[in-house]
């Protein structure tokens, strides 16, 4: 008997007893749903945790500081910095050529006066120069906004500035807190206008030092959840580089502390988590300090892996229990169908034909239960994720996203089928050994 014919015969037997088959399939489906839902939620939780660790950026992201490495901090995720060391284009090019480096994203900073008409900075320490209460000193952080997805920044309100824009910025909760704006009130600042002033030192003809600022207007288009390095304002490279050039061109005897390094730092994305360690070592050899949550990510991944193992174990136990139901159902079927099996033998079925037919029955129930359970499990995982996402975003935190784990779905269906076939082995062998005389009522 061919496999196709055995399949048809098995399918007919299953359909002939729909109630028992349905109960068995439901048991497998529930177990598969539990298995799928738990692992999907575990993967989602893992992604959310790692995303939080990487602050929304890629897991293989490395921050390079304009400072030399601190020898006593080797191997530390966030080491203390060594002496200041500017990053110029040559250094950037060297780092870009390191094996294992995918992308190098420059970060430019500029000191800035931030003026917010109509708002008063709170606290004496926050007062700006000349006793101005509406102006504070802060730092602009400039990145290529078109690469924003690669940076560890996440939005809590509004949007990111348009790439290349010189009139749009995002602000951070730390800056807003200096004006007494905290919590959900931070969302209300989107759309308001701030004035940014890059200071520059001059010396008058009579030798008097003078500071003049290059002022620009900008609209706040979003609020990011993280402090952008040491800066409270996130903007495009264009805006910040123009301010930086203005400040750096000042008289060094008037403003010796002005930032003159073209790049305040770099954000390097390695080709994968495996490459982070070697890339960090290579960058440190070039002479710059690096930080990356690689140890933390590795630790978290280990713990999450343990959780996944436990959940997988629970899911497998559930599937195994469901498989026992298949064994029980098929053993009962073998008892009830003794005569039918005898007839099959009497008309010429080999032992293995009978075996095959029963194994296929078991496999069909397992596969069907696996498919239904996978779909149910994914739907359940999405429902739970939607609830969690709603809660997180209402708290001003980044939400969760559930992917569609195709491989997990396939593995569940295959696993349920294999377990079911395994569970059907004993009943199938028992059926195969039944003598043909069962067909004859003696």
């Amino acid at each position: 008997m061919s496999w196709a014919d055995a399949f048809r015969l098995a399918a007919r037997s299953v359909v002939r007893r729909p109630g028992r088959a349905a109960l068995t399939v439901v048991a497998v489906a529930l177990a598969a749903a539990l298995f799928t839902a738990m692992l999907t939620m575990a993967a989602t939780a893992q992604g959310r945790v790692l995303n939080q660790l990487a602050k929304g950026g890629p897991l293989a992201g490395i921050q390079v500081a304009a400072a030399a490495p601190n020898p006593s901090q080797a191997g530390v995720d966030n080491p203390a910095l060594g002496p200041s060391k500017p990053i110029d284009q040559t250094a950037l090019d060297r780092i870009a050529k390191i094996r294992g480096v995918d992308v190098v994203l420059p970060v430019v900073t500029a000191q800035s006066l931030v003026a917010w008409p109509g708002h008063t900075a709170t606290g004496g320490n926050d007062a700006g120069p000349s006793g101005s209460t509406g102006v504070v000193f802060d730092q602009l952080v400039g990145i290529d906004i078109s690469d924003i997805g690669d940076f560890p920044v996440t939005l809590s309100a509004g949007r990111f500035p348009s790439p290349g824009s010189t009139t749009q910025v995002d602000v951070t909760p730390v800056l807003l807190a200096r004006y007494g704006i905290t919590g959900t009130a931070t969302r209300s600042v989107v759309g308001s206008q701030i004035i940014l002033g890059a200071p520059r030192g001059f010396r008058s003809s009579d030798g008097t030092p003078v500071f003049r600022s290059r002022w620009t207007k900008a609209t706040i288009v979003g609020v990011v959840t993280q402090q952008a390095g040491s800066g409270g304002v996130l903007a495009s490279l264009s805006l910040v580089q123009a301010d930086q050039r203005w400040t750096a061109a000042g008289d060094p005897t008037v403003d010796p502390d002005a930032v003159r390094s073209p790049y305040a730092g770099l954000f390097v994305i390695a080709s994968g988590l495996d490459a982070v360690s070697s890339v960090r070592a290579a960058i440190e050899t070039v002479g710059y300090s690096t930080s990356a949550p690689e140890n933390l990510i590795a630790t978290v991944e280990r713990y999450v892996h343990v959780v996944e193992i436990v959940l997988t174990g629970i899911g497998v136990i559930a599937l195994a229990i469901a498989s026992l139901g298949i064994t029980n159902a098929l053993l009962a079927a073998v008892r009830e169908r003794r005569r039918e099996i005898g007839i099959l033998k009497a008309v010429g079925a080999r032992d293995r034909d009978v075996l095959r037919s029963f194994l296929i029955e078991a496999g069909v129930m397992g596969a069907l239960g696996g498919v239904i359970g996978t779909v149910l499990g994914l739907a359940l995982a999405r429902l739970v994720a939607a609830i969690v996402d709603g809660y997180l975003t209402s708290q001003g935190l980044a939400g969760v996203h559930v992917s569609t784990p195709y491989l997990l779905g396939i593995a569940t269906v295959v696993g349920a089928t294999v377990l079911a076939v395994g569970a059907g082995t004993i009943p199938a062998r028992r059926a195969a050994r039944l003598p043909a005389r069962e067909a004859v009522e003696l």
Partner: protein
Amino acid sequence: MTPGRRTGLGVVSVLVILVLTACGSPSSTTTTRTQPSGPRTVYVAVGGSDSVGYGTDDPLLDAWPQQFFRRSLPLQTVFINAAVPRSTVAEAITDQAPLARSSRATVVTVWLVSADLLDGTPVTTYASQLLQLLTSLHGAGATTVLVGNVPPLDELPGYPACRAGTVGGGRGLRCPVPLPAPASLSADVAAYNQAIAVDATRSGSVLVDLRTAVTSSVAHGGQPFLEPSGADLSTAGSTLVAEAFGDRLRAVTRHTA
């Protein structure tokens, strides 16, 4: 190939494809990017203490060029305040004009009246220096140069302080000793305004008649133009000056649009 073996191969192929697409991530070439930029309006303020914001509640925010920048110029404007406290026109030529030129200013405001008047700079000298200043600003490519004239003597920043003898040491106000009589200074004010008007016309600049604006404000009981000591503009005074410059710029822009 038997049906069973075909099916098995098909399943394996699908699995392999899924694993490859799940594991693979697009690699990008190592790259760094910067973008060009350039504002449409570059505004440079040339002036003295009033332009720096002395006397206002919050100089950085309330100085009249800052207010003019915020209220009267487009979003994509860069503003540089080149003003130096107590600057004369002669000092501005060397200290401030080069910055306007190097910044490629497209709009320049010039209000340099108090220091020269109180220093006793002769009107002819003032006129010649002012013309030189305005011409150099135009020569650098500035499309619009607005120049303010002298407000009435009683509202001239510094004069009431000098007259009252309330000048503090910190603000650098230089009072003439002896202080000329009001009638004499008023005549100087009128002569200066005449010279400013002529120089504005000759250089193609736009005159901002602060004298009339201030006189009208005082006549209508507006807020004090000067801060209590009389040495500098008040916040309200800075606002009035900013509005006067703003109104004039809008008028010129409408006319040329």
